[in-house]
C-alpha cells in the first residue's frame, strides 16, 4: 500500500513535471536564442528570478529568500535546491523506468489478451459450428423418430388390420367348416341309412366256431351291477395310481426334509460359530438377532423330536427357521461381500467412519512431520554442500576442526581404552609379582632363619645339644609348604596373562609409583573411556539418521560443538 501510494505520488509529480519542463525548455530556448547561453553576467538577476520562479513552480523552496534582497546567491539554498532538483530528476527517471516497464508489461498483456481473444473467438466459432451441426443432427433424428413413429403406427395398424382379417377369416372358415361338417354328417347319416337298408351286400361275419374269451370266462350281460363294478374298478385304478404317487412324493418329501434338516443344522453351526467372533456387529442388528436366537433354540428343540416332523406345526417351524437362518446367512454373506468390496475400493471409505476432524488432524500432523523431515534433509544438504564447497569458511572450518578433534579424541579414547586394559593387566601382574616377591622375601626370610637355625644347629651339633633339632625342622617344612601353595596360586595367574607378560616383560619390574601415576592419569577421564565405544557406533549412525538422534547428540557433544548444535536446532525448528 505505501509503495503504491508513493508510486502514485511519483506519477502525479511526474505529470506535474511534464508540463513544467516544456515551459522551461521553451523559455530556455528563447533565452538561448537571444543570448546564446542561458546565463551570463548580464542577466544573472533575470536568470535568478526565472530559476526561482521555475523552482517555486516545482514546489521547492526558492534558493534565495528574496530575489531583490541581494544578488548574492545563497549557496546553501542553491545547493539544497539543486539537490532537490537532482532528487526530483532521479525520481522522475525512476518513475519513467517504472512506467516503461509497466508499459512493456501492459503491452505484452495486451498482446496476450489479444491472442487469447482471437483464440476464444475461434473456439466460439467452432463451437457455434458444432452447435449448428448438432442441432441439424437433432432435427434429422427427430424427423427420423417421427417417421419411425409413423411407421410403427402404420405397422401397428397393419397388424391390427391383419389380425382382424385373420380373425374374421377364421370365424368365416369356422362357420363354413361347421356348415360343411353338418352337411357331411347328414350325408353320413344318409349313407348309413342307405347301407343298412341295402340288402344285397351286408356286413357279415363268418366264423367256423366261436372261440372262448381270453380269460376263459363267459361274456357278461350289461347290467347296472356291471356298470357299478366298472366304476369301482376305474376308481380303484385311479386310487392306486394316486396312492403310488403319494408314496413317491412322501418319500421324496422325506428326503428333501432330511436335506433341509441337514442344511439347517449346518447353517446353525456355521452361524453359531460366527456369532462369538462377530459380536461387534451384533448390536448393529439389535433386538432382531436376540429374538431370532430365541426362535432358533425353539426350532432346535422341535427338530430334535423327529416324530413331530410330520406334523404341520413342526414343518412350518422347520421351514421358518430355515428361512430365518438362510436370511441371516445371506445377510452375513452380503456383509462379508460389502466388506471385501469396501476393502478393495480403498481404505478411505472405511476411514470415513472416523470423524473428519481427526482425519484432518492426522493429515496436518503428517504434513508437519513431512515438512520437518524435508527441513532436516535440506539442512543436511546445506551443511554437506558447505563442507564440500567452502572449507575455508569459518563456521565450517570450526565445524571441521571440531569433527577432526572429535575423531582424534575418539582415536585417543580407543587408545586409552586399550592402554587401560593393558594397565589393568599389568597391575594385576604387578600385584601378583609383588605378592610373589613378598612371599619370596618371606620365604627367604624363613629360609634365612632356617639357615640360621640350621647353621645354629650345625653349630650346636658340633656342640653336644642335639635334641632340639626336630621341632625346628618341622617348622621349616611348614614354611616350605606354604611357599609351595603360593607358588601354585601364582602359577595360575601368570598362565592367564602369559601373553601380556611376554609382550611387556618390562612391566614386571615397574615400580609402584609409575603404575600409580598411570592409574591416576587414567582416572582423570573415566567417563570418556566408558562412553567411547558407544560414541563410535553413534558416529556411524549419525550419517544415516540425521534428524532422529539430535537430542542424544546434544547430550554427548556437550561443550564440544555447541555451534553445530545450535545450527541444527535452528534448522529443525
Amino acid at each position: 500500500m505505501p509503495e503504491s501510494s508513493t508510486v502514485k505520488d511519483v506519477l502525479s509529480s511526474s505529470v506535474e513535471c511534464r508540463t513544467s519542463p516544456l515551459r522551461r525548455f521553451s523559455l530556455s530556448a528563447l533565452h538561448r536564442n537571444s543570448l546564446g547561453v542561458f546565463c551570463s553576467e548580464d542577466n544573472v538577476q533575470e536568470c535568478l528570478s526565472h530559476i526561482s520562479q521555475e523552482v517555486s513552480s516545482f514546489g521547492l523552496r526558492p534558493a534565495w529568500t528574496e530575489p531583490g534582497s541581494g544578488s548574492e546567491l545563497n549557496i546553501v539554498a542553491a545547493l539544497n535546491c539543486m539537490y532537490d532538483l537532482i532528487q526530483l530528476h532521479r525520481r522522475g527517471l525512476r518513475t519513467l523506468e517504472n512506467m516503461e516497464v509497466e508499459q512493456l508489461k501492459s503491452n505484452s498483456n495486451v498482446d496476450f489478451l489479444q491472442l487469447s481473444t482471437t483464440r476464444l473467438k475461434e473456439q466460439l466459432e467452432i463451437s457455434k459450428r458444432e452447435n449448428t451441426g448438432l442441432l441439424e443432427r437433432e432435427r434429422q433424428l427427430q424427423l427420423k423418430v417421427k417417421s419411425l413413429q409413423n411407421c410403427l403406427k402404420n405397422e401397428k395398424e397393419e397388424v391390427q388390420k391383419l389380425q382382424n382379417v385373420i380373425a374374421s377369416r377364421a370365424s368365416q372358415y369356422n362357420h363354413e367348416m361347421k356348415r360343411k361338417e353338418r352337411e357331411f354328417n347328414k350325408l353320413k347319416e344318409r349313407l348309413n341309412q342307405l347301407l343298412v337298408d341295402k340288402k344285397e351286400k351286408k356286413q357279415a361275419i363268418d366264423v367256423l366256431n366261436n372261440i372262448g374269451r381270453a380269460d376263459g370266462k363267459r361274456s357278461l350281460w350289461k347290467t347296472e351291477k356291471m356298470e357299478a363294478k366298472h366304476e369301482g374298478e376305474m376308481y380303484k385304478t385311479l386310487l392306486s395310481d394316486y396312492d403310488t404317487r403319494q408314496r413317491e412324493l412322501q418319500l421324496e418329501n422325506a428326503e428333501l426334509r432330511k436335506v433341509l434338516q441337514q442344511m439347517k443344522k449346518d447353517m446353525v453351526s456355521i452361524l453359531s460359530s460366527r456369532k462369538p467372533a462377530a459380536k461387534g456387529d451384533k448390536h448393529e442388528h439389535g433386538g432382531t438377532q436376540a429374538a431370532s436366537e430365541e426362535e432358533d433354540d425353539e426350532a432346535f428343540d422341535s427338530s430334535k423330536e423327529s416324530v413331530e416332523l410330520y406334523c404341520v406345526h413342526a414343518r412350518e417351524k422347520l421351514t421358518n427357521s430355515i428361512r430365518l437362518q438362510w436370511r441371516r446367512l445371506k445377510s452375513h454373506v452380503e456383509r462379508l461381500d460389502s466388506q471385501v468390496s469396501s476393502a478393495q475400493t480403498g481404505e478411505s471409505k472405511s476411514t470415513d467412519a472416523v470423524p473428519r476432524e481427526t482425519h484432518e488432524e492426522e493429515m496436518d500432523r503428517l504434513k508437519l512431520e513431512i515438512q520437518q523431515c524435508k527441513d532436516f534433509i535440506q539442512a543436511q544438504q546445506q551443511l554437506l554442500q558447505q563442507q564440500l564447497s567452502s572449507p575455508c569458511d569459518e563456521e565450517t572450518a570450526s565445524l571441521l576442526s571440531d569433527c577432526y578433534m572429535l575423531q582424534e579424541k575418539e582415536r585417543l579414547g580407543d587408545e586409552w581404552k586399550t592402554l587401560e586394559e593393558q594397565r589393568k593387566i599389568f597391575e594385576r601382574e604387578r600385584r601378583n609379582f609383588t605378592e610373589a616377591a613378598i612371599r619370596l622375601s618371606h620365604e627367604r626370610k624363613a629360609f634365612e632363619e632356617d639357615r640360621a637355625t640350621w647353621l645354629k644347629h650345625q653349630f650346636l651339633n658340633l656342640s653336644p645339644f642335639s635334641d632340639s633339632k626336630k621341632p625346628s625342622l618341622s617348622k621349616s617344612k611348614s614354611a616350605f609348604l606354604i611357599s609351595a601353595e603360593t607358588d601354585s596360586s601364582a602359577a595360575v595367574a601368570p598362565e592367564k596373562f602369559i601373553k601380556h607378560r611376554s609382550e611387556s616383560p618390562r612391566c614386571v619390574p615397574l615400580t609402584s609409583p609409575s603404575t600409580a601415576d598411570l592409574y591416576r592419569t587414567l582416572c582423570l577421564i573415566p567417563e570418556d573411556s566408558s562412553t567411547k565405544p558407544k560414541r563410535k557406533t553413534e558416529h556411524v549412525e549419525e550419517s544415516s539418521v540425521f534428524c532422529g538422534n539430535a537430542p542424544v547428540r546434544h547430550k554427548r557433544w556437550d561443550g564440544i560443538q555447541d555451534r553445530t548444535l545450535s545450527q541444527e536446532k535452528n534448522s529443525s525448528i
Partner: protein
Amino acid sequence: MNFSEVFKQTNQLCKVSPDGKYLATCVQYRLVVRDVSTLQILQLYTCLDQVSHMEWSSDSLFILCAMYNRGLVQVWSLEQPDWHCKIDEGSIGLVSSRWSPDGRHILNTTEFHLRVTVWSLCTKAVSYIKYPKACQKGIDFSRDGRYMALAERRDCKDYVCVFVCDDWHLLRHFETETQDLAGLEWSPNGCVLAVWDSCLEYKVLLYSLDGRLLSTYSAYEWSLGVKSVSWSPSSQFLAIGSYDEKVRILNHITWKKITQFEHPAIIDNTKATVYKEAEKRPGVGSDEMPLHNITMGATLFNTQSKYEICPLPVQIPVVKPDPDRASPKIGISVLAFSSDSRYLATKNDNMATAVWVWDMQKMSLEAVLEQTSAVRCFQWDPLRPRLALCAGNTKLYLWSPGGCVSVQVPTEGGFQVQSLNWHCSGDSLILLGKEQLCLCYMDTDQEDNCSPDKNM
C-alpha cells in the same frame, strides 16, 4: 452281430408275435408264420386278396389280415390251422382294422369314418360306435388293455369316449376343449389321457381317467402347433414336439413345462457328442482291392461308413421348408423314449439327416447322429438304452451311451433298410427292405454296442 438270409415280404407286413416266438410275414396274398429262432415255416395261410394290414392278437394265438380295398378281414388261428374267420364289411368299406386288447374283438373303422364296428369272435356279436373322428390318432387303448379312448365328433364338437374293453361299456363321455382334436394317448399307467389339438393351435389337454380336466398346456399361439406327442414309459414325462422345432417336456405332478429341447442348426453344446457318419468308398484303382470282393458283386458298390466324433461347433444341414405348401416339413415329427425313460430320441423334419438323443436326467443334449442320408426310422431296444436307426441304405446304425456303430447289412441285391422293428427280447432286429426282410441278431453280450466307432 449276425444276419439271417433274406426273405420276401410285401407292404412291409412283417410282425413278431407278442410272445416273441413267431414271425408273421405277408407275401402278396399269403401269410407265412415262421419260428423266430429257426426261421422254419410253421404255417402258411392263403388270404382272399393282397393283405394291406396284418396284426397279431395280444395272446399270439390269432393273426388278423385286413384287405382294405375288398372291405374284408380274415383271422387265422395258429393253434387250429383249420379254423377260419372272415369278416365282410360289405359296401360300407373299410379303412382300418385292429384287435381289441383282449384278442377276441376286432374293431373295424368304416370308410368316411361312418362308424366303428366291433366284432366279437366269441359271440359273433357286432356293435357299432358312431361318430368316430377321422384324425391322426383317434383310438388308443390303455397299456393294460382295460380301457379304450375314442375321439368323437358330433355337432361340430369334439368328445372323448372312454370304453371298458371287457364289455364295451361306455365308462365316460366328455367334451374336450379343443378346436379340432388331432389325437389322444393314454399315459402308460393308464390314468391320464393326453389330448392335443390340430396343428393350427398349440394346445395339449390332460384328462384323468374319470374325465376330469387335469391341466391345459399351450406354449404359444397363432403359429403351427403340436406335431407329435409321446409319454415316457414311466408316465413321468410328456414330450411334445412342435412345429417350432422344439420339444417341451411336461412333468406329471404339476403338468407344467420342465424344460424345452431346442434343435439348433449349429450345435455348440459342449456336453453333447456329435457323431457324423463318414463314408469311404473303396478305391477302385487300389491294389488292396481284394479279389473276393469283386466276386461278391453287390457289395462292391456298397460304401463303407463309420462314425466320427465331430469337434464342436457343428453345423447340421437344414432344408428350408416351402412356406406355400401345407404341412411343411419342419418341426419335431418323431419322439421316442428309451425303455428306461432315460433317453429321448427326436427327429426334426427340416434336419432329416440328424437324430437327436437327449438325456432326461441331465435334461440336456446327449448326442447327435448326423447321417449321410435322411433318417427313415428309429426305434429303441425294448430292454436296453440302445437305439437302432435306418436311413434307407444298406446300413444299420446303432447308438448306445457308450458310442455309435454303423453296420453294413451283408446281403446280396442291395438290401436297403426302410424300416426296422426290435424283437421284444431286444436280442434281434427285423430289418425291412422294400420287398425283403432280414433278421439281425445282436450279440448277447454288450460288447459290440459299447465300443464306439466300430465298423463292421
